[in-house]
């Protein structure tokens, strides 16, 4: 057993760093010693990661090396936008490769699958997200991509900080009024119609194929009609959301109500349970995974429906309105700020539903340890 354990990411990082030394300094704002310091950190990190270290130590070394190099590289761009040389991008690549190695170490090379659930399963995707932002920032500012094309994340962050009142107003208009109302009404009515349809076999047989078909249709197209009917304010957006969320809920609830097994249903019959007792105690419980599936699909559909409906006419507030007007004015940072807001809202919405699902359907095989 040698003390060395070569891995391709570290080797590639070494090669990239050595290449970067041919193009010193990296940017107009970085002096030659400064650039050399970055290269030294990268080489040290790459070399150390090839030693046979405990994986915890290796991860720590890699994390320090990759993030220190990235921080220096970003700092080196100050007042030197668009002056990055090939060396700059080579060392950026090297830092990214070290981060990849870090993720590989944390994932345990696939050997310890299913273990280390808690911390690692959060850290790895977070690292990935941070690196997407770092690469975005460095490439956009390093290569001097025009602001109107793609603003760097730092500028978007500044914009978010500066326009919190506008974002809050848009959030209130689009999410709290249109999305929430439409989502609740659409999902609830889909659910109730499914329960009623289930009582009468004939009704359910007819609704299921129609609902399946309608779910595949571009329902977003009703937005202009709803704007004509219900006016420019949030009511028309809520109506679009109601129509878009109704059918997925209907179809999934109907499918879920058919999900309980014959054995269980026969058991309920031997107990002399009435239709409603079977429904409440057995079939609705069995339908819960399907219902939550619909709720999750609907959470995305509701946001999309409300935002796209605002493209067709709206009062001067709302996320869709802001996106379409700021695109026209080439204020791309504001557009990205709205997108970030939408992403956070969408993810929180989805995350809350997933959490709720876990507590309601704790018995489902996919949550068993």
């Amino acid at each position, binding site marked *: 057993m040698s003390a060395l354990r070569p891995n391709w990411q570290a080797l590639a990082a070494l090669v990239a760093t050595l290449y970067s030394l041919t193009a010193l300094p990296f940017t107009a704002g970085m002096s030659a010693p400064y650039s050399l310091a970055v290269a030294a950190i990268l080489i040290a990190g790459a070399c150390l990661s090839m030693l046979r270290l405990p994986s915890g130590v290796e991860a720590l070394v890699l994390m320090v090396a990759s993030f220190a190099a990235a921080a220096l590289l970003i700092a080196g761009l100050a007042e030197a936008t668009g002056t990055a040389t090939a060396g700059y991008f080579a060392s950026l690549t090297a830092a990214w490769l070290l981060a990849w190695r870090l993720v590989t170490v944390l994932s345990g090379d696939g050997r310890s699958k299913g273990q280390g659930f808690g911390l690692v399963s959060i850290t790895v995707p977070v690292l990935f997200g941070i690196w997407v932002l770092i690469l975005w920032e460095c490439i956009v500012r390093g290569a001097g991509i025009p602001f109107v*094309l793609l603003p760097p994340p730092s500028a978007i962050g500044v914009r978010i900080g500066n326009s919190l009142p506008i974002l809050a107003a848009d959030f209130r208009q689009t999410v709290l009024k249109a999305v929430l109302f439409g989502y609740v009404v659409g999902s609830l009515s889909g659910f109730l119609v499914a329960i009623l349809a289930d009582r009468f076999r004939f009704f359910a047989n007819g609704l299921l194929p*129609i609902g399946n078909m309608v779910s595949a249709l*571009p329902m977003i197209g009703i937005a202009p*009609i709803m*704007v004509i009917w219900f006016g420019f304010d949030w009511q028309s957006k809520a109506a679009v959301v109601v129509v878009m969320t109704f059918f997925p809920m209907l179809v999934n609830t109907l499918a879920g109500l058919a999900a309980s097994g014959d054995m269980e249903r026969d058991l309920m019959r031997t107990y002399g349970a009435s239709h409603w007792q079977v429904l409440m105690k057995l079939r609705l419980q069995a339908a819960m995974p399907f219902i939550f599936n619909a709720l999750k699909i609907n959470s995305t559909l509701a946001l999309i429906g409300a935002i796209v409906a605002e493209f*067709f006419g709206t009062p001067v507030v709302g996320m869709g309105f802001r*996106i379409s007007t700021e*695109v026209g004015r080439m204020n791309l940072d504001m557009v990205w700020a709205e997108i970030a807001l939408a*992403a956070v809202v*969408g993810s929180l919405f989805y995350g809350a539903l997933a959490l709720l699902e876990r507590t309601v359907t704790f018995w489902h095989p996919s949550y068993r340890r």
Partner: protein
Amino acid sequence: MSGGSFLRDRLAPVGSILLVILIAWYIAAYALNAPFQRDFDRRTDVTRTGAEFLLATMSQPKPTMPAPHQVAENLWTNTLTVKPWSKRSLVYHSWITLSATLLGFAMGTALGVAIAIGIVHVPALDRSLLPWIITSQTIPILAVAPMIIVLLSAVGVTGLLPKALISTYLSFFPVAVGMVKGLRSPDVLHLDLMRTYSASKMQLLWKLRIPASVPFFFTSMKVAIAASLIGAIVGELPTGAVAGIGSKLLAGSYYSQTIDIFAALIAGSIVAILLVSLVGILGRLVNARMGARQA
């Protein structure tokens, strides 16, 4: 559907519900159009009998709610009585949307399969990429569509590709998730058998994983092609109403031509149904040919 007849279990219930929808549509058309018609008649000093009034609500040029026969008539004139390549023809607009849909769908499916193969083979990708792919779908990406279109046209990319890119984004996700499931679906027994044959990773992929994933592939493609059509339609909204079903919707909303909007919607729905059933039929044929179970 064992034991039941097609007529009793499918045709009769579906048919009667469609009939109920049609009747409800006519009633809604009357209810929504009546106030305007009453107002209009009062101002032009026309008195009508009940039946005449009913007919008048069904034949307004710009009704609040067009009656089904008005939409059908509009569809008829705009598909069958004009040349398919004229700008008035819905066939022409559907074709524009369809071409973007298909291009985006093809790119999205290829991307989804590539990502799935990567995720199945590289554990680091599985851990880092999969959560973000799922998160990416909670982002209302359609909201970004206008920006992508405007940006790409600023760079000089116009026409089919920007719309197709939005379709790609929407359609890669179902394929990627479905294929990850499908590529992991072979039993441990089968995987072990392949290992006793000393199969390489490539052989394992081609001879076991990909054949096993075919049912999953077609199921997710059905979702993907519907999503991809939606992407193409929304992608057409900000292009300044040149051509396509989305631009028809936008033009209709500018001029309050509800009949046109409904006709465009129905054209889009027909395209959606055709595409989904085409993928479904293809899937059934391939599955039957390969002797696979339905996923």
